């Protein structure tokens, strides 16, 4: 029986660009080019490795996002995923973590899954909570923030490097996992992969297809509300000295003046 893996990938504004808020205080997705969140590349990579070790596996990349989010799916397909699902609906604009997780949960169930693989956090929202919420909603084990992951005999295992300890985890499938950027570099799509991706199926779904009420999502349905967003003032220019042999002493003088020593 085939191992069905769904990888949740997010399309985000490039973190190295000048990111902004729109007038409605949602993330401005126009001003800065978007791409597949770099942290979700690690999720695609681990899914590919798991599928290579399985007898038979099928990988679906799944995104909830605007039309352009298709680029993120293309990237996943060029890396080697088999098919893609894009949930796109005008009513989704401004959806927060609880809403997104609702949509992802329905979509994952629609696709059918044994294993859901997520990134450790999105590079725009950086909450890092969606995988846990997804597991809660799906009623399956959460095996999250893994730096190593493996699947065998209907079980997923992995190592979670926490603040206080490193934990070895184990759960039965189906399960939701998330992997960190310590899990291993993601592969670059090959030329062959990029060509092949063009022929792979991309299914597009809207809220109706998933049986979700528009009131449950979007800006109006959000569980949280941004009241205001202000650009942080640039830091005032500091003193910069060139070391002519006394740099360490000058620095000590500064620190003493600030009462750090």
């Amino acid at each position, binding site marked *: 029986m085939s191992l069905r893996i769904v990888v949740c990938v997010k399309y985000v504004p490039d973190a190295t660009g000048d990111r902004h808020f729109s007038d409605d205080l949602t993330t401005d997705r126009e001003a800065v080019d978007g791409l597949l969140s770099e942290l979700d590349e690690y999720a695609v990579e681990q899914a590919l490795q798991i599928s290579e070790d399985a007898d038979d596996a099928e990988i679906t990349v799944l995104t909830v996002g605007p039309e352009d989010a298709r680029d993120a799916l293309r990237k996943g397909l060029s890396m080697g995923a088999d098919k893609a699902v894009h949930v796109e609906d005008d009513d989704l604009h401004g959806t927060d973590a609880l809403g997104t997780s609702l949509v992802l949960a329905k979509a994952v169930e629609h696709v059918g899954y044994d294993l859901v693989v997520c990134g450790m956090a999105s590079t725009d929202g950086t909450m890092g909570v969606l995988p846990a919420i997804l597991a809660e909603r799906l009623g399956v084990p959460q095996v999250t923030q893994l730096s190593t992951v493996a699947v065998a005999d209907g079980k997923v295992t992995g190592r979670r490097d926490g603040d206080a*300890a490193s934990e070895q985890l184990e759960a039965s499938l189906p399960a939701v996992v998330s992997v960190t950027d310590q899990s291993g570099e993601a592969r670059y799509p090959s030329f062959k992969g990029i060509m092949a991706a063009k022929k792979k199926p991309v299914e597009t779904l809207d809220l109706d297809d998933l049986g979700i009420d528009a009131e449950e999502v979007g800006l109006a349905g959000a569980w949280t509300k941004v009241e205001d967003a202000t650009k942080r003032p640039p830091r005032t220019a500091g003193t910069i000295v*060139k070391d002519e042999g006394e*740099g360490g002493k000058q620095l000590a003088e500064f620190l003493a003046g600030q009462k750090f020593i």
Partner: protein
Amino acid sequence: MSEVLVYVDHADGAVRKPTLELLTLARRIGDPVAVHLGSGVDAAAPVLAEHGAVRVLTADAAEFADYLVVPKVDALKAAYDAVQPAAVLLPSSVECKEIGARLAVRIGSGIITDAVDVEAGDGGTAQGEASGGGPVATQTVFAAAYTTRSRVSRGTPVITVKPNSAAPEAAPVESAVEQLTFGFGESAAGTKVVGRTPRESTGRPELTEAAIVVSGGRGVNGAENFHLIEELADSLGAAVGASRAAVDAGWYPHSHQVGQTGKTVSPQLYIAAGISGAIQHRAGMQTSKTIVAVNKDSEAPIFDLVDYGVVGDLFAVVPQLTGEVEARKG
């Protein structure tokens, strides 16, 4: 006055500093009720009372250590049901964020993560009210390029707060320890913890809690040179951080990484040596009070952030600084 649940982060009853900060912030909203799960409540309770916890709800069970996250959610949900709080505050650690998030789904509430400040908001404590009134959480977003203020608009606000967001204030109260009664749900035993290797203590302050952090990057050029960073840190009583480049090269453990995929630090003083200041690194240190850098490249973006910068070779500047600090300490 309504009550606010505060989830206690501790090691066998030794309460971590971020929890004391939470108690201080919680008192702006209502009377803090601490939730202490696992062992050591006898040691923790007086510390929690000292910082204003009017009640301490506790439970201990093997499940908390044997399975991941969910047993703690079950217990916190029981505390929520018992208290009907105006808000739930948790520290912003990886685990606590997950606990808070799952609780939020269960109680049908919104969640705000990684707040750096929490205020009561105009209406004080509007439990379950649609927007307005509830606590306001300040966050820094887009690698600290923006500051936002947000509210939870549906349900009881669940808010996780980053370390170093408030100075813990003592506010001693008479406090009672109460046992939580509840049963674990079906999903509690879903993810087994089959092994645990505690992190070795370095004897230095906790990175996220430290008043001073000294970090080394690719410029340190080898694990064998990191002692220069450690010696400076020790002279200042600081924690040691590292850039991802230094971590990826295997020079320093990942648990010390500062940045987007490492720890966020917000100390009084951040010293960056041999670090260029990439956006992902800045995301983790940009809100530090005073920033100092040593870098041999005068064009390095880190210099845009500094209060004081030295353009020079860290192998000369850092040891000289360490020596000077030691000398001044006399």
